[in-house]
Every structure is written in structure tokens, then in C-alpha cells.
């Protein structure tokens, strides 16, 4: 009995002394005092040095996209550090291209703020904020895809149609790490107090959380909006193409066009396997009435049923069939990298200018 007690006391004391020592030294040795953080040459922040650039920016309520939470494994949190970043670390090098290294791009989760530092970030990131929301509604659209509506209460979000937000998946039973994953917003930009997401089940950390743990009424944390995939003003006809949850940003774009009475010709190619994989058909039907010249072209690759009268095969083949010459077209694609690459090939063959092909690979 005595041995047990002395063991506990001795181990606790030694651990406490070491912990105290480390805490004191991180307050003294690890304390770099106040430093000035200059962003885009015009905004200055006085911050406490010593933490990573990502955390420092977060404490100033500037959110840089990051999917791994600062572990240096996703490579999303890239920021241009003009001055005061110190040398590039070995942990960053594998995630930076040669051009980025020359352009002094750093991973903000690895780069520490220890002296006055100058960085440049895209202006849009100042718009990014963190939101607490309540799950207002969930709906199982297909066996694997769920629609979720997050309500922000009194807070407002302003985003461009096609942009995405990051959802925080907290630790849950069977998963002890907290991760952020990106999902495109499927709802209208005029719906400022809520966002809708389409989330497909893949067995990953975040999708397992959403499909098996998240219920209506639960609290969630998101930040955003992010992304350079969004609707651009133009006059020519427009091609939309997606598969699975790639429907989300396209729904937001269609809603935006309907709300603003934009009279562009629209062709929406949607790739799926069978009729069971089609969803939100009522909403799409609504757009056929609201929009002036809208055509929905679902393209099924594995449908054998006699009932199906639509397109069969792959989306690039359907594009080939529906479009003759595309010089004045613009295109918005959202789906898997393989799918987007094949569609881009098909679009280029129709002379659609590559600078007018916008895509979001996931």
C-alpha cells in the first residue's frame, strides 16, 4: 500500500516539476514579445510572437483554409511571407512547389511568428469568419448523400455562388482527432442566415461524423467562405457539369441566376450511375420554369432499365452531342479530378476557351 502511494506521489511530483519547468521556459524563452504583423502592406496588427502564423492569424480572426488543423500535412494553409518568416523548414518543403519556394510561399501552420513579419494574402480571406450553427434540417437524398442545413441564428454569411465552407468534425467515438473538411455551399446567396451542404458518405472522418453522429438540433462549427470557383458575369451560354455531391455549387449558381433573372442559356450535365443516384429533381424542375433557357441533361452510365429515356454513358460524350461550337461558352465543373479532366478535354475540343472553364476538383 505504501509503495503505491509513494509511487504515485513521486511520479506526480517529478511530472509536475518538469511541467512547471517547461511552462516557465515557454513563457520566458518561448516568449518573443509583441511583434507587428503587416498584411498586404496596409493592415497592421500587434500580436504576441511565439505561435505559428496560422494560429496568430486565427487569433486576429483571419482564417486561412486548413484541412489538417496545423499538422503540416494538407498543404492548404499556404501564405506568401514577404519578410520575417525565417528559413523554410524541412516539414514544409515536400508540400511546396519550386515556383512557390521562389515566390516565398510558406505553410502558415509551420512558419512561426518571432519577429516583425510581412505577409500577403488574398483580399477575400478577410471576409472569412468562424460561425457556430445549429443543424436545422437533414435529409437523406440518396443512400449515400445527405443534405444538411446549418442555421447561423442572427449571424450573416456573405459568399459568392460556388464557394465552399469548412466544417469542423470534432473528436467522436472511434476518432480522437479534430479535422476540418471543405464542402461547397448548395444554398442561395440570398439565404444569409443559413447554408445547405450536400455531403456524401465515404467512410472518412468527417463524413462518418456527418452520417452517423450528427443529428438535427446539434451544434456545429464552420468557417468560410473560401474558394475561387464561383459564378462570373458574362453574356454567353453556360455549361454546368457535375456528379454526386458536385451538384452543390451548381445548385447555388443556378439559384443565383434564377434570383437575378439572368437570361443566359444554361446546359446542366449531371453524371450518375443509375436512376437511383439522381436527386433534387424537383428543385431542378423548378429552375426549368424559372430560367429562360435551361436544359438538364442527366447522363447515366449504368442504367439498364427500359424506363430511362435520357442520355446514357459518360458526360464528355453527352457534351459532344449537345454542343456544336463553343467559342462563346463558359463552363463550371465540379466533381472528381478524373471526371473534370475528361470533361475539360471534351470542352477544349469544342473550342471553349480554357480561361472560361472554371472547376472545383475534390
Amino acid at each position, binding site marked *: 500500500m505504501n*509503495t503505491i502511494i509513494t509511487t504515485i506521489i*513521486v*511520479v506526480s511530483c*517529478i511530472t509536475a516539476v518538469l511541467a512547471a519547468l517547461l511552462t516557465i*521556459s*515557454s513563457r520566458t*524563452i518561448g516568449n518573443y514579445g509583441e511583434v507587428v504583423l503587416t498584411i498586404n502592406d496596409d493592415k497592421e496588427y500587434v500580436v504576441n510572437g511565439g505561435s505559428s502564423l496560422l494560429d496568430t492569424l486565427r487569433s486576429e480572426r483571419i482564417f486561412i483554409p486548413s484541412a489538417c488543423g496545423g499538422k503540416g500535412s494538407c498543404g492548404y494553409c499556404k501564405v506568401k511571407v514577404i519578410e520575417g518568416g525565417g528559413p523554410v*523548414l524541412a516539414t514544409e518543403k515536400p508540400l511546396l512547389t519550386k515556383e512557390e519556394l521562389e515566390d516565398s510561399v510558406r505553410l502558415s501552420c509551420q512558419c512561426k511568428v518571432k519577429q516583425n513579419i510581412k505577409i500577403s494574402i488574398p483580399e477575400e480571406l478577410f471576409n472569412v469568419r468562424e460561425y457556430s450553427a445549429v443543424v436545422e434540417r437533414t435529409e437523406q437524398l440518396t443512400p449515400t448523400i445527405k443534405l444538411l442545413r446549418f442555421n447561423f441564428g442572427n449571424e450573416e454569411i456573405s459568399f459568392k455562388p460556388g464557394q465552399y465552407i469548412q466544417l469542423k468534425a470534432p473528436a467522436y467515438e472511434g476518432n480522437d482527432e479534430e479535422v476540418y473538411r471543405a464542402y461547397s455551399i448548395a444554398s442561395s446567396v440570398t439565404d444569409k442566415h443559413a447554408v445547405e451542404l450536400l455531403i456524401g458518405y465515404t467512410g472518412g472522418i468527417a463524413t462518418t461524423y456527418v452520417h452517423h453522429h450528427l443529428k438535427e438540433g446539434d451544434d456545429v462549427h464552420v468557417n468560410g467562405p473560401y474558394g475561387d470557383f464561383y459564378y462570373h458575369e458574362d453574356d454567353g451560354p453556360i455549361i454546368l457539369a457535375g456528379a454526386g455531391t458536385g451538384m452543390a455549387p451548381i445548385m447555388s449558381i443556378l439559384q443565383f441566376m434564377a434570383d437575378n433573372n439572368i437570361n443566359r442559356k444554361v446546359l446542366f450535365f449531371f453524371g450518375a450511375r443509375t436512376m437511383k443516384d439522381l436527386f433534387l429533381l424537383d428543385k431542378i424542375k423548378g429552375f426549368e420554369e424559372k430560367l429562360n433557357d435551361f436544359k438538364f441533361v442527366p447522363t447515366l452510365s449504368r442504367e439498364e432499365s427500359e424506363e430511362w429515356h435520357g442520355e446514357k454513358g459518360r458526360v464528355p460524350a453527352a457534351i459532344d452531342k449537345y454542343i456544336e461550337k463553343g467559342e462563346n461558352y463558359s463552363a463550371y465543373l465540379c466533381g472528381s479530378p478524373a471526371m473534370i479532366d475528361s470533361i475539360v478535354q471534351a470542352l477544349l475540343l469544342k473550342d471553349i476557351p480554357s480561361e472560361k472553364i472554371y472547376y472545383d476538383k475534390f
Partner: protein
Amino acid sequence: MIEVNPILIFFAAIFTSNMIFSNFLGMCSFIAVSKEIPTAIGLGISVTMVMTATTILNYMVYWTILVPFNLEYLMYIIFILVIAAFVQLLEMVLERYLPTLYYSLGIFLPLITVNCAILGVSLFMVTRSYDFMQTVGYSIGSGLGWALAITAMAGIRSKLNEKSIPEGLRGTPITLVITGIMALAFIGFSGMVQIQ
């Protein structure tokens, strides 16, 4: 307690009882970081530093705390705690005062925490019942021996880059083969001094 001069122990730890070639401890970083000479030297120096400091600290903790309370069996946990805390502290100090060295060591520094050669030296110091001066000699010697081994290996491996090696042997396998041959060569030193 064995009666061996601390200076003899120091040399023995480098040559006859080299951590890598006679105990095969600290192999993972030995194989992973022995590709280039400069990084190998950097890691070798930091291992020596950490090894010396933590062994001396562990010596004091062992004889002043664990032995009086009859808690010798706790040494594994306590030694690891001391090593982990020391490496953290060293990381902070280097980052603040010697940033150049800090950046050149990069991720190898935290890796030292889990280098079993470091824990090994602390444990051998106990099982061989060294006194304080012997412990000092032994820990510095072991660190330098480890540094010598990894630097020599990095030298050999940088020469190997230009040679055509059968595909199945490239990388770790050939390194292990060479380690074996180097260990055989180090047997040549044995018999000079015996410390284990």
C-alpha cells in the same frame, strides 16, 4: 561498482562498446538520417548533447529520488519523462538563441526523444552501477560513438549513391548489411577495454 577509470570508459564507449555496433540501439534514426554527412553530423552532435545532459540528470534523479524511496522499478518511466522534457527545453533554447542550428536540425531534434540509444545509456548506467564520473565519461563517449557511427555511415552511403546496387538491396537493406560489416570491423577494437 566496477573499478574502471572514467577516461577508459569514455574511449570504450566510443570504440569497443559502441551504442550502434555492439548494442544496436538507436537504429531507426541511424538508418533514416545517414544519407548526407552534414545532417548526420548535426544529429550526431545533438544526440551527444542530449545524451550527456539527460544521463547526468537521470543519474541525479535515480540516486537522489528513486533509490531512497525504493522506487528503482520506476526508472523506465521517469527516465523517459526527463528525456522528453529536456528535448523540449533544448528545442526552445535553440530556437531562441541558436536559430541557425535549430533550422539545420529541423525535425530531427524532436525525434531524439524517441531515440532508444539515449534511454539505453541511462539504463546501462544503472545496471552497470557507474559512479558519477564514470557516468559522465560513459555518456559523452556513447554520444560521440553514436555520432561517429552515423557520420561514417553517411560517408559510405554518399559514396554508394554512384554505385549500381541490385534493386532489392537499395536503401535500408544495404544500410543494414553495411552496418553489420562495420560492426564486425569494430570487433577489432574489443579486448582493449572491457566495460560490459
